[in-house]
């Protein structure tokens, strides 16, 4: 039976609703985005049901199911598949086997492989933890003592589309909601003047919108894609600015609209649906200011902008910080269009170049979060959809490699976490001697998802949604919270 069916939310007047919620104007905004009763009444909603009941709308803040370690997420998505043995998982043994077939042979990946390809980069230990990190991430490495490296990640398939969807939605092919949509569904957002879940990307990653889709969850939970190829804040959000009339004129227009609507609503007994739409105009009016502000990094002091650097990737990280500061729940920063980290060839120049675009920004972001006291309850995730092979990709007809790059590798790769409730200066799990396959304390993408939800205060088995006759969850029927990652 639907526990929310008894909730006569449609039949409350705004005054009644406000009284019941016992709060002032702040909550008015929340009530303003009143969803339909069905949405609120989803029987399989988060088990933090009482808070769901008390709030008004689909994006209103809901309490986690248990105390959360992290309140928000920044996901630095190195899409295309960064090579673990060139970044966060040093494998000196590759040098010994350079050019020779690895003992035990190659695992199956998408394309034919040859002998071992040692990393062209130097690794050295950083910080007190002594975690070894590649020279191409030297600024990130300055924070080694605050990172929690998972060197034993694995996925299912050495293909981009499938693995991107797996990493985001927990399923390779079927239309399932992204974890950002699940979290926004579970927790709402702390600032309803901004979208709850934002995906920043200069262009579109492979598998495009399916990466941040809401699938069967209501569309309001879908990630808002911001194409950061555009730089003017008002270009980033649809209809955020009126180019025809001044703000003052618009205020007058809204006052007229409110006057007409209020009388219309009064004659209809203050139907909450009508009230909600009246309020949505006020929200929209405020959003015009706040949203453009949030995306406008020119408002940052020069010192901060210099610290981040001036690549599109570092601008994204700075926008991400501005967004989470304002209460956005989940921000993903995709490195670039399509699959930039897909270095099938010339791994040395390609990876050096890619890391060069973002290393400074990551270092700055971590410093910035710490300085602002946001690090403790912000979960930073960094990684790709899979890693790359320690063996060279053979040049073959129809393959992009010319013998100096690496193929996709889902058998083992690294993702690192930082902040919000994870261990500091810690390495979890390991790949084999050559970095091919995760062997120690293996962590599947489903486990990562379960752990992310856990850090956000959500049970991955209890955050469910009834669709097509079944209660769905992000981790389907698998996934385990990895306690070894929790600080």
């Amino acid at each position, binding site marked *: 039976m639907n526990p929310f069916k008894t909730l006569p939310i449609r039949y409350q007047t705004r005054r009644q609703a406000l009284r019941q919620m016992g709060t002032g104007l702040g909550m008015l905004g929340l009530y303003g985005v009143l969803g339909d009763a069905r949405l609120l009444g989803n029987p399989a909603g988060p088990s933090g049901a009482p808070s769901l009941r008390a709030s008004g709308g689909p994006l209103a803040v809901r309490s986690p199911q248990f105390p959360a370690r992290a309140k928000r997420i920044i996901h630095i998505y190195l899409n295309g598949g960064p090579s673990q043995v060139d970044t966060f998982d040093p494998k000196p043994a590759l040098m010994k086997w350079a050019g020779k077939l690895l003992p035990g042979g190659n695992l199956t990946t998408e394309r034919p492989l040859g002998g071992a390809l040692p990393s062209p980069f130097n690794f050295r230990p950083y910080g007190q933890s002594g975690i070894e990190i590649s020279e191409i991430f030297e600024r990130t490495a300055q924070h080694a003592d605050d990172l929690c490296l998972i060197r034993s990640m694995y996925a299912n398939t050495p293909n981009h589309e499938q693995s991107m969807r797996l990493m985001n939605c927990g399923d390779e092919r079927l239309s399932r909601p992204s974890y950002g949509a699940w979290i926004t569904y579970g927790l709402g957002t702390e600032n309803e003047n901004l979208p709850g879940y934002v995906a920043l990307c200069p262009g579109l990653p492979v598998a495009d919108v399916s990466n941040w889709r809401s699938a069967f969850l209501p569309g309001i939970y879908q990630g808002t894609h911001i194409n950061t190829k555009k730089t003017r804040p008002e270009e980033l959000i649809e209809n955020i600015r009126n180019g*025809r009339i001044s703000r003052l004129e618009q205020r007058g227009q809204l006052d007229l609209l409110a006057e007409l609507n209020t009388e219309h609503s009064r004659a209809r007994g203050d139907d909450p649906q009508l009230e909600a739409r009246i309020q949505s105009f006020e929200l929209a009016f405020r959003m015009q200011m706040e949203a453009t502000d949030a995306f406008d990094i020119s408002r940052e002091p020069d010192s901060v902008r210099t610290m981040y650097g001036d690549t599109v990737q570092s601008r994204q990280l700075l926008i991400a910080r501005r967004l989470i500061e304002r209460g956005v729940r989940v921000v993903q920063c995709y490195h670039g269009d399509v699959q930039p980290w897909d270095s099938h060839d010339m791994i040395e120049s390609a990876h050096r170049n890619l890391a060069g675009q973002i290393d400074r920004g990551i270092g700055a972001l971590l410093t910035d979060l710490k300085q602002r006291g946001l690090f403790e309850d912000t979960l930073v995730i960094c990684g790709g959809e899979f890693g790359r092979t320690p063996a060279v990709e053979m040049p073959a007809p129809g393959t992009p490699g010319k013998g100096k790059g690496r193929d996709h590798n889902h058998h083992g790769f690294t993702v690192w976490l930082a902040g919000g409730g994870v261990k500091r200066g810690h390495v979890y799990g390991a790949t084999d001697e050559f970095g091919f396959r995760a062997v120690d304390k293996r962590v599947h993408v489903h486990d990562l998802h379960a752990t992310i939800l856990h850090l956000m205060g959500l049970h991955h088995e209890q955050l469910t949604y009834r669709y*097509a006759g079944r209660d769905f969850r992000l981790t389907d029927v698998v996934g385990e919270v990895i306690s070894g990652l929790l600080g």
Partner: protein
Amino acid sequence: MIPRLKHVLALLLLTAVFQLPLRAAVSPQTLPKALQHWAFRPFHRPPVSLALSARSTTSPLDAFVRAPLLSQGLDLSPRAEAAVVLRRLYYGLVGLPPSAADIEHFQRTWDQSSEGAVDGVIERLLADPRYGERWGRHWLDVARYADTKDLVLLYGRDALRPFAYTYRDYVIRAFNENLPIDQFIGDQLAADRIEPAVSPWRLAALGFLTVGRLFDNNPHDQIDDQIDTVSRGLLGLTVACARCHDHKYDAISTAEYYGLYGVFASAVRPTVLPLIEDPASVLDGPAFELKFEAARRELEAHVDAEFAALSERFRSRIGDYLVRAATTSPDLTETAQFGLSLTPDDFRPSLMQRTRRFLQRRLQSDDSVFGPWARLMALPDAVFPIQPTAIAGFLTLGSSEPSHFNPDIVQFLSSRVMTNRASLPRAYGDLFWQAYSQSKTNASSQNSSLKELVRLVDSSEGPLWFPRRETPDHMSRPEKDRYGGLALSLDKIAAYATNAPPARAMVLTDLPEPFQPFVFIRGSPARPGPLVPRAFPRILNGGRPKSLGPSAGRLELAQAIASPTNPLTARVFVNRVWMEHFGEPLVSTPSDFGARSDPPSNAPLLEWLTAEFIESGWNLKYLHRILLRSATFQQASLTEDSQRSPRVIAARKLDPLNVLLWHYPRRRLDLEAMRDTLLHLSGRLQLTLGGRPVDIESDSLNGRRTVYGLVDRQNLPGLFRSFDFASPDQCVERRPQTTVPQQALFALNSDFTAEQARSLLSLPEIKATLSTESRVNALYRRIFGRFPKSFELTAAHRFLESHNPGTVALARWETFAQALLATNEVVFLD
């Protein structure tokens, strides 16, 4: 005697295995119990008298609605005002508002005879082509309609399915022509199979099965999507749950899922779609067809060449396939459900799977060709290596009967040393290849024994045979990329053509031989389970098995679904129609009538409507008439005055969610009705029917109805998402209804609304006005179909003249008009 007993035992075992998946969920105990669920029970027409009350009602429908209300001391609300009823009729049937003149005319006839007035409007609107556009769109939600493919890295017009629109236009036309709904359903599943052949336009109905996602070209997911759309969309049954395991709640087994799988796997999407329009009747049609034909030829030639080359190449590797199948277990290259980049030497996953299944079937000790292999393999390790003479002795000795083994096999094996078990498949492969090579130069000299071996290499009996249509699956990466490019160019030629090319239907065609389905254990095609018949779920056939016949069974499936004895189809359809007119459906989960659904809020009502619907010949327009003529539809929604009445106060307490319908529920217009209304009011609405999709997202001047806007599945426009458009990724049972600031931003800031305000002011009837007051009056009449009230007039003056008393700049008028267009009065239906 003994062999016969063995035979019988084997058969029994086999039968047991076959029935295993059927038994698991649908045991003899559970099926009858499942059949007791209300939705699986046959219809019965409830007697109207039972529901009738003392007060006379206008229709039996009202009697059914009033019965539960009266039992709680409640009743319907009084009738709404004429203008409100008229507006509901308009939006309910055509998705557009009535004009002021319409309202005035209706009011006059209403005053004479309200029933006559309502009937007149219903008939007029049902005959209006706008009706099909409105109702077609409702159906397109169920059909997960989109205009684009979901292939990675295809954007813009490259992603277009150039003929998807023919399905949309079919749906609109079918509703306008009032095609009986059982035929409408039949068309969408099997228009190509219906005898005598249907008119060409109806072939486009098969888009129902073909406009879904492509799932990275994974055929199993495509079929799953078809099963899901058919079962949830038409039957209100979540059959797709049984893909990996028996349905957890409803009596649907995995075997039954794969029974349906077999129906859809027996049909393919042809590369070249059939024409449903005469090219000569289309501007530039014949020239386009020439270009299209040239591109088609190039594609076919590539496939022909690859088919021949790949077939020969695989034949030459028969030994490699046999060795691998016999000596290894499947790895990722075989089990992956995605397209690998193949090099010429890679094993082909599906052929490897086929080889394994082939050996599973043929590697038996009494098989004429594989018997020797099976027998030798059964020997203990210690006997290897086996010398040639020993082999000959082993295979012929110990039997008084003449050997039934293929003599060439025996002879060949007896000429080789078998070092270990892996030598067996290698020897077979070598012999097969020898026999085949010889047949190419000297087939006539081959005896029947050799011919038996050759057939295992070059005919469909063999493990490495594949039909021509599967050629692209086996191509190596460069050839496959070329194939993809050529296939895409067929679509692109059409998508980029300046004039719409002659229409083609997105059909399916049955394979020459239907697919024989087997269970995929845990949903994995690499883990074959028992063979299952192509059949209709038993739960929908009174618990009895229902075979779909010897052919593919698509037509039979259509007949079983669109049947008056199917307990679900008509109920599900009627429930959807009810939802569109009354906001809430009678069954709250319109695509799931299974065990997990709540029972109908008013069961006798649903039964009676369903009975009426079926008896009317599945006549949708008849169903509309019943619903719209009712007092239930015409009752008032809540107002300030009514809220204070004891009746409403009591009703609120007893039924706060209005489940019993004691008032009409107020609703926000959906995306299509909202946008179309603004266009209609501004005079920009263009009433062209059908055709290729148009850009309504970035082209703010486009005046086509929203149903014709491009639905880009890959990148659904923000406008669509903000206004709760149905996701085109899967069959949608109902749209969410949210109120979010993005909607307000659209109303306040978009080019589109600004454009409508501007156009509105340039309409002659508005432009011709001379005073501020007369212009405000004209705007109110146009937008709201009424004159302004005094406070509205005061507010208008204050707003308009706040800057320059006396004269009002045009820009100020536009701001004013835009505010009026954004009011709740425009966007809500009372």
